[in-house]
């Protein structure tokens, strides 16, 4: 059995990577990811983790170095945030295209400018189409479990894709939470050593990253996209395995008090916990409201999502980033598009909130329900509303 400890989430994330026996960690420091890589360098320095810690000179080189080490057959981890993720942008696509099982913890933070070190989802929403599996953690325990799960899924020979585990900067990374840390034996039972099907080995030479001429590029992209879509069943399978091994259950879409709910919040990441408390308060007042939380962002679990919202009349989609020039934030834009194709009838209200570390309170969520219900009743076409803007 694991032990229940009070631990800063960043340290717990690093400990989880240590329990996974990563062979290489290549990372560049950026707030609020720093504690994750600081602790990993400590684990290596103290001899608790037998790994190469490569203190690269940029995030671009971090991801490039990860590609090299993963291609050499090593279990590879990195972590970044915000501008660092943006600097990696070019290389993230190539990691997926080379089918390398790199795991990255993304400490979500706003993008410049103006420069801001605080939390929102602008960084990862700019990386939606990189071809990586992407999950969102709501609390410290999820960060640990999703990290173990990330290696398990990434290295599965049916998948062979990189995985990004998203955790909200500061709100999760810098908070001490009670977390059940698994024992080494338990992790070993869940996650065997990485055995790549091919690697850069002079005994068995292969060429990786060859040119995609027009005759082959389309097919290569289709195969890559199909691999991401097909990873869905493996992701679920390894969450089931995680439940068996550690006793904690994970689903692609989580629901909270959705039975008979007319209004549903759709959230991602740590804000979901505040929403749950707002839902509780409104339920006490007899308002039929619930919550749907997207844990698996890529590949998007559309059928699970449609099932979760089936009984609702109105959705309140919370976005933590903007799509300038579009009438909705990134999550609402995507959901509306997918729901339209499914013939869904729900009214979709969209609120952008919590940008650059702005707190979002329980009462603001309650106000969103009032606004959304009013808009839904009048049938007005609703553009996204930014919450709490000082004008």
């Amino acid at each position: 059995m694991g032990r229940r400890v009070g631990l800063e989430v960043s340290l717990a994330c690093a400990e989880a990577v240590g329990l996974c026996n990563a062979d290489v960690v290549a990372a560049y420091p950026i707030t609020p990811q720093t504690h994750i890589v600081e602790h990993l360098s400590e684990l290596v320095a103290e001899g608790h983790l037998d790994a190469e810690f490569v203190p690269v000179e940029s995030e671009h080189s971090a991801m490039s170095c990860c590609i090299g080490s993963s291609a050499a057959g090593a279990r590879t981890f990195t972590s970044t945030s915000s501008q660092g993720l943006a600097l990696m942008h070019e290389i993230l696509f190539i990691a997926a295209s080379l089918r390398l099982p790199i795991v990255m913890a993304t400490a979500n933070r706003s993008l410049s400018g103006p420069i801001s070190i605080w939390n929102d989802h602008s960084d990862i929403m700019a990386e939606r189409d990189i071809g990586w599996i992407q999950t969102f953690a709501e609390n410290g325990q999820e960060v640990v479990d999703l990290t173990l799960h990330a290696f398990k899924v990434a290295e599965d020979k049916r998948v062979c894709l990189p995985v990004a585990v998203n955790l909200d900067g500061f709100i999760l990374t810098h908070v001490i939470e009670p977390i059940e840390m698994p024992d080494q034996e338990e992790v070993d039972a869940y996650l065997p050593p990485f055995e790549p099907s091919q690697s850069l080995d002079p005994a068995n030479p292969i060429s990786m990253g060859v040119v995609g001429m027009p005759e082959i590029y389309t097919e290569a992209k289709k195969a890559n996209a199909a691999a991401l879509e097909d990873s869905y069943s493996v992701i679920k399978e390894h969450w089931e395995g995680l439940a068996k091994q550690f006793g904690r259950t994970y689903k692609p879409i989580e629901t909270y008090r959705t039975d008979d709910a007319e209004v549903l919040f759709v959230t991602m990441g740590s804000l979901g916990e505040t929403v749950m408390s707002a839902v509780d308060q409104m339920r006490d007042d007899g308002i039929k409201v619930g919550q749907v939380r997207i844990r698996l962002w890529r590949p998007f679990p559309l059928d699970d999502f449609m099932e979760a919202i089936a009984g609702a009349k109105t959705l309140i989609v919370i976005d933590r980033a903007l799509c300038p020039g579009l009438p909705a934030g990134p999550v609402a834009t995507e959901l509306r598009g997918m729901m339209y194709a499914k013939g869904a009838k729900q009214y979709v209200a969209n609120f952008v909130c919590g940008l650059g570390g702005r707190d979002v309170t329980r009462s603001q969520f309650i106000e969103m329900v009032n606004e959304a219900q009013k808009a839904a009743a009048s049938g007005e076409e609703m553009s996204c509303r930014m919450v709490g803007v000082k004008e």
Partner: protein
Amino acid sequence: MISAAEALKDFQKITPKTIPLVEPFSKGHRACQGCGEVLALRMVAKAVGMDMIAVSATGCMEIISSSYQTAWETPWIHVAFENAAAVASGVEAGRKALIRKGRIKDAGAKVVAFAGDGATADIGLQALSGALERGHDFTYICLDNEAYMNTGIQRSSSTPYGAMTTTSPPGPKSKGQMTWKKNMPMIAAAHNVPYVATASPAWHVDLMNKVKKAVTIPGPAYIHIFSPCPTGWRCGPETSIETARLAVQSKVFPLFEVIDGQFILSRDIKKPKPVEEYLKTQRRFSHLKPEDIAYIQKRVDADYERLLKLVQVTAPEA
């Protein structure tokens, strides 16, 4: 870590009779006729041998070697333009960890990164500096053809003064390239890495011995190879080697090594040919006026004098 001198104690020199017969880089590539770069690359690969793990930056050599079929007989990876050194450091770090943990055997694989001058002196300089500073055991080969040839002959910071490129065209207000060539070997040497060298395909045995030394010495090594590009330099494909030879003989591209900080001339040019003789072989310099050539001659002489001084001051005390 052992010193370069110690690592080279039992160094077996390659001679014209013992040039390795292996061809890690072989048939199936689509380089231009007379390409000096692919010739240099083949010599490097022969000197490293079949234990090479090659990392290529985007560029001519990557494109011509990996479309439809691969010309690489040893493991090869290409990721992007500016990151060959970072990818190579990852390959090295990954293998180091796996060897230490007993998961793979240490069969003496050599990690070698290949990049052009743009990928080295411009867009990839940061990644290269980082990898050299961190001390990874790898060899970085800069195949310098003095412009962005793969995209159509645009100037880089390694383009020589006066050269015509598609982004440094000569005209009433321009002499062509208006800046002096960036001195990459000196930049690499400033990282205090155990081995830095310049090489030329016109001295192929010297080139191969430098590569062999680079992969023998533990830690990072940097070799800057002069790589004539007939297409971009506007010279005959049959003149590549002659052009490369003239560059050395005119002191435009001196051949030297820096071993553990000591500068050693590979070839002292006591009777240099005039720079003009080198310049006139290539139409990229055909617009230059006598005063431009005189200016180039002056700076080439000064650069060579400085190199000689470095040889003197870094020589071990007698």
